[in-house]
């Protein structure tokens, strides 16, 4: 890689913005209410769209009558989304789309559509343990099965294994092989083709058990301590404050302008073209700001597509389709649940030896992927057996939720290990430290983090064995958990232009979810060009700018930082070439610092930025930045993080109160320290929220969500969070390059808090959220256990 040195991030002494607290560059427009979101677009002649939704969790449409609606004044377009005969697999599924001149009108119109259904049996509860005698599905995979696996983020190795073992029912050439990862595409190409098998209907899709070593022998070995437990988390929602939605308008008969609220600006045209019936090149997506996504906003979804279809029918008038709060919570994404019965074994000295688990959870109507348990230690634990059954139920489609599958895997694993540590009579901190080699390549990072977390929480000074002996009803305890995440940057491109008058513009088709990507882009550009962020204009959030990947999986920071660095270095070097002569030096001898272009080591030989740029001539400098995607040395993958929780539990009311949380987090080279810290604080709070409050409560009879509002689908408020401490591993792992941070810190809070509660009250509350009812039930079980 000959260019590596040239593009490497500047060393610490040359960083004025990278890794510093430079202030969020888009802070002011947000706090003054001037920042515009999709929900805020009110173009002239705006129509309002809404859906008729299926009221049943499982039904078949028998009849749709829209005649009354079509006669209603003010109704401008009606589109049937699903025809009679279609089967609906969750309550809230879209049936008919309508656009009208105002919102009350469209709501009236929705009520006037007559749809008849044949109700079918449904299942919306996921906490019941599935039967163990169902054989794994060995039938050949249809293309829909494969799509389900992608949607549910089943690991690639698992997909390849299934394709090889089960065969496929479709022709490989009919599948979009070029859009699949190469190993999966190859597996499809070489798969055995089989006729489709009629599968009996089932709620449960067990996967084949995955095993390593000799599990049974390990559990029976002498000198072994075994802990058993049941652990779980329910389905939760994304609850983006800006609900899902889009505003679409046809600017002429075959050009579409879309404002979709999306985590993937560059990807919207390609996902809409076919269904809307025009080339992707004729679709423009624009988004200035997004009010939360958390993994649920990658596609245009039906609301995006039908805003465009309704607009077309209405002669191109803009149509706004934003979900109501109830719709947002009912249909716009659930994080899959996970439950597991676990047995875990260690030698008496604390050395972990074996894991055995039977787990289940929903993956929406298609089944789904399984959490990577036992978390962190799977690759190196000598003996394990992991069985997983996907519950195919009618709770609604699953969507990626910040760190898909990891909070589930972390809760199940870290709770089980914490219970084992208790049984061994060990301090969990010592127990985790003793087994740290099982975490493999990140063991050294965790070892660096242990003493810092310990100091910040006062763990070693304050930890007590399970069951706070303090008299009175309030019991206090400490818990900890650890996590990892990939987070390698995505493919990203940009154009950086330096004008002869010294103005600098960056164009990049990316998005800032509030994570601070704009701030990071400007930090990198400013440090490379020797300017301040205020001297650089960043244009983003538009498909007219160079493509940038979707903001998911913590891939944005690595992607946009590396592409910005490459463009800025090239543009700066082009500028050096123009001004070298005037400074009596060669381009290689120049540097751009403090608003000057000057000769290295001779600061008196300098030109101000504007003077230097005046030498550019008539044609501006434009550098196109394009990172090297997966093989770019400017970014990396795989972070280590650790969290500790200090809680108080009122054993009379069951109320859990957070006293303090500590997060110690590595993410390689930190680009924007302040927004990185904010990500961690935010993740702790989001974690407190799902640990204590969040649950999509389903009614088994009606199949509907019972709490589709923010009163009963509770989020943590400012009074619920306790003291929060975040420590970023600054300047420690810079050489690893930039690694994403969005997902990692939200993984551990549930487990850390659950462990702290167990430490406080002396008994495990098996299921999140740790509501008063669940805490009291666990305490009651403990009492019964004692008296029995």
């Amino acid at each position: 890689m000959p260019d590596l040195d040239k593009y490497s991030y500047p060393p610490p002494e040359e960083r004025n913005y990278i890794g510093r607290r430079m202030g969020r560059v888009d802070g002011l427009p947000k706090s003054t209410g001037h920042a515009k979101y999709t929900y805020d677009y009110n173009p002239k002649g705006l129509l309002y769209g809404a859906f008729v939704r299926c009221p049943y969790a499982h039904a078949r449409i028998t009849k749709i009558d829209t005649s009354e609606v079509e006669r209603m004044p003010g109704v401008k377009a009606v589109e049937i989304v699903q025809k009679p005969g279609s089967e609906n697999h969750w309550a809230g599924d879209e049936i008919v789309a309508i656009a009208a001149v105002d919102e009350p009108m469209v709501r009236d119109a929705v009520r006037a559509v007559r749809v008849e259904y044949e109700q079918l049996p449904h299942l919306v509860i996921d906490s019941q343990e599935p039967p163990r005698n169902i054989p794994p599905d060995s039938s050949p995979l249809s293309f829909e099965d494969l799509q389900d696996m992608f949607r549910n983020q089943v690991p690639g190795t698992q997909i390849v294994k299934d394709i090889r073992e089960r065969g496929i029912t479709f022709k490989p050439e009919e599948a979009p092989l070029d859009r699949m990862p190469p190993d999966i595409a190859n597996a499809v190409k070489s798969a055995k083709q089989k006729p489709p098998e009629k599968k009996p209907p089932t709620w449960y899709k067990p996967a084949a058990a995955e095993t390593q070593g000799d599990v049974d022998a390990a559990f029976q070995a002498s000198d072994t301590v075994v802990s058993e437990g049941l652990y779980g988390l329910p389905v939760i929602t994304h609850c983006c404050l800006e609900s899902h939605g889009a505003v679409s308008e046809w600017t002429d008969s075959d050009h579409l302008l879309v404002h979709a609220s999306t985590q993937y600006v560059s990807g919207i045209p390609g996902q809409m073209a076919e269904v809307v019936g025009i080339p992707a090149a004729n679709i423009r997506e624009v988004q200035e700001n997004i009010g939360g996504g958390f993994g649920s906003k990658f596609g245009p979804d039906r609301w995006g597509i039908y805003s465009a279809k309704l607009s077309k029918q209405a002669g191109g008038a803009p149509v706004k389709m934003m979900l109501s709060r109830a719709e947002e919570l009912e249909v716009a994404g659930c994080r899959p649940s996970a439950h597991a019965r676990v047995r875990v074994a260690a030698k008496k000295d604390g050395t972990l030896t074996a894991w055995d688990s039977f787990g289940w959870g929903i993956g929406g109507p298609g089944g789904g992927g399984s959490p990577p348990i036992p978390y962190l230690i799977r690759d190196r634990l000598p003996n394990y057996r992991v069985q997983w059954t996907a519950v195919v139920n009618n709770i609604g489609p699953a969507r990626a939720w910040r760190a898909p599958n990891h909070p589930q895997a972390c809760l199940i694993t870290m709770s089980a290990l914490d219970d084992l540590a208790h049984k061994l009579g060990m301090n969990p901190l010592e127990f985790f430290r003793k087994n740290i080699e099982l975490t493999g390549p990140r063991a050294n990072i965790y070892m660096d983090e242990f003493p810092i977390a310990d100091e910040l929480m006062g763990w070693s000074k304050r930890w007590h064995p399970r069951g706070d002996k303090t008299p009175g009803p309030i019991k206090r305890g400490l818990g900890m958990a650890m996590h990892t995440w990939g987070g390698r940057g995505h493919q990203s491109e940009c154009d950086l232009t330096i004008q002869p008058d010294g103005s600098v513009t960056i164009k990049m088709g990316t998005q800032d979810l509030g994570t601070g990507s704009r701030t990071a882009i400007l930090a990198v550009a400013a440090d490379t060009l020797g300017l301040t962020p205020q001297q650089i204009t960043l244009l983003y959030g538009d498909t007219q700018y160079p493509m940038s990947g979707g903001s998911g999986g913590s891939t944005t920071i690595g992607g946009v930082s590396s592409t910005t660095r490459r463009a800025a270095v090239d543009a700066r070097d082009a500028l050096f070439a123009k001004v070298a002569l005037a400074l009596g030096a060669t381009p290689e001898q120049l540097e751009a610092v403090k608003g000057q272009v000057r000769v290295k080591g001779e600061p008196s030989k300098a030109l101000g930025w504007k003077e230097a740029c005046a030498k550019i001539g008539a044609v501006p400098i434009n550098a196109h930045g394009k990172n090297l995607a997966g093989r770019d040395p400017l970014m990396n993958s795989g972070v280590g993080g650790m969290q500790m929780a200090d809680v108080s539990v009122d054993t009379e009311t069951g109320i859990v109160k957070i006293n303090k949380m500590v997060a110690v987090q590595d993410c390689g080279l930190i680009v924007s320290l302040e927004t990185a810290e904010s990500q961690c604080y935010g993740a702790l709070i989001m974690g407190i929220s799902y640990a204590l409050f969040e649950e999509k409560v389903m009614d088994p009879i009606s199949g509907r969500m019972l709490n589709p509002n923010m009163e009963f689908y509770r989020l943590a408020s400012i009074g619920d969070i306790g003291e929060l401490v975040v420590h970023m591993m600054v300047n420690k792992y810079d050489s690893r390059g930039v690694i994403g941070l969005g997902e990692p810190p939200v993984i551990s809070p549930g487990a850390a808090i659950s462990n702290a509660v167990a430490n406080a009250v002396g008994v495990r509350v098996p299921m999140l959220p740790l509501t008063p009812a669940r805490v009291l039930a666990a305490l009651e079980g403990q009492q019964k256990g004692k008296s029995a």
Partner: protein
Amino acid sequence: MSTNDDRSSGLSRREFLKISSIAASVPLVARPRVIEVEGQEVAVHGPGPVPIMLTVNGKRLSAELEPRVTLLDALREHFDVTGPKRVCDRAECGACTVLLDGRAVYSCTTLAIEAQGKPIVTAEGLGAGEQPHPVQAAFVNNDAQQCGFCTPGFTVATKAFLDKHPHSSDAEIAHGLAGNLCRCGTYRGIRGVVAQMTGREPKGNAGTTMIAERSAASPKGGA
């Protein structure tokens, strides 16, 4: 937040619905007529559009709106004042918070018609002219925002909270600002805002701890 106990003496949405169902049974008239409800005289407006005039951020804005239109929808949909956001639409999350006659209210559960004659201030109008309000500047200083969707409502609520509690305690913050919800999790920054505004700390958010400060190679950057 103090929204609920500060509810103006006007009609709540529920009361309005009760009355409007009565109004539906009386003949439509051009100007409000008075009927008796539970022994009290009440003016009946609508159900068709009626002229409504609001004073928003110092500007007088008028439109013909149905009396059932909320202040939030009037601001956003009719006057394009989009700082107040619609999130829960039922007085749970505070993203729609505005000042009505100096007091914080949830504009999603305030009717536009009852907001007439009182000054309305949204996040856009909190500062003086082009200048942000010090609370808004403190939100930037303390990085008390991420996606920013709850932020305009939060800045207004925080301003109203500080007016009432210029020397607020942690307990008062925990209670008084609990009426605004954030999904990204910016509460720590917001505590920093209050700490800064009440002079308890010059800048609330020290961020990464002293251990990090010790190991950082060079001092803080600008901006």
